[in-house]
């Protein structure tokens, strides 16, 4: 079965995030006040063959561990959905 997954990669708290900081600094100059703690991560969308959602999640956890994230500086959240619209991302 084919599943669609979205992997949200975020830097750990305390790791420098120039993109997030720059966005945050720009907001008040545009008149948007009261926004803080801006963090800009990565969102990786993909389709994966798996027996069920748990299998897809387990496979992707390994992919994240070995490749998509560097655990020294980043963490990932994996969301798996059945791919009714595979290829439509």
């Amino acid at each position, binding site marked *: 079965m084919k599943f669609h997954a979205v992997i949200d990669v975020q830097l750990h708290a305390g790791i420098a995030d120039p993109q997030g900081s720059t966005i945050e600094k720009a907001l008040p100059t545009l008149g948007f006040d009261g926004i803080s703690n801006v963090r800009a991560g990565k969102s990786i969308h993909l389709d994966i063959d798996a027996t069920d959602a748990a299998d897809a999640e387990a496979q992707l956890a390994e992919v994240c561990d070995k490749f998509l994230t*560097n655990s020294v500086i980043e963490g990932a959240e994996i969301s798996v959905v059945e791919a009714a619209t595979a290829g439509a991302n």
Partner: protein
Amino acid sequence: MAPTIGVVRFPGTNCEFDTVEAVNALGGQGEILWHGDNSLANSDAVVIAGGFAHGDYLRPGAIARFSPIMQAVTAAANDGMPVVGICNGFQVLTEAGLLPGALQKNAGLKFINDWQMLRVETTNSSLTNAAEVGQELNIPINHFEGNYTCSPETLAELKANDQIVLTYVGNPNGSVGDIAGVCNEQRNVVGLMPHPERASHALLGSTDGNVLMQSILDSVGVTA
């Protein structure tokens, strides 16, 4: 016989010829190694040169570490061959798990291209055996992701094992412990963010990098 120093070239590497030049000027034999090959040919030591391997996509070094050449580099490193990663090469070695820690974006959030004073912290490594402890070296840095980071436990281990090889005099990028370069426990694998090959001739503004390049040549044949 002049030691042969293999210099790894990935798509996007841009310091390989400077590195070969610096090696040759000291009487070594620099040879380019292609990332798609899985052999180090007749190399006595390996330098992973600076640049932007595979465009730095995903993370610097994240794709490069899966290149065929890295299997050969890893095997040779485990056998004690001197392996030095410069700048992007340092990032590749941390991603490959051959060195502890990781390089995050500079604390000042800017790319830095400048001369930088470094301090030699140990001479017990394949990059510093020809130098002296406390020696200060003027060597350029050229990076965005040069801010060395690791867990407090790892930092304590690095200190306890004398694995901090070079530190910055005046921390330019926020690196923990002012770390500019570290080695593995066996001391044959070393990574550093500064570019010794760019401080290898008076015309470049400094020759302070030569003592580091010479150390790589001198470490050939010495069992780590």
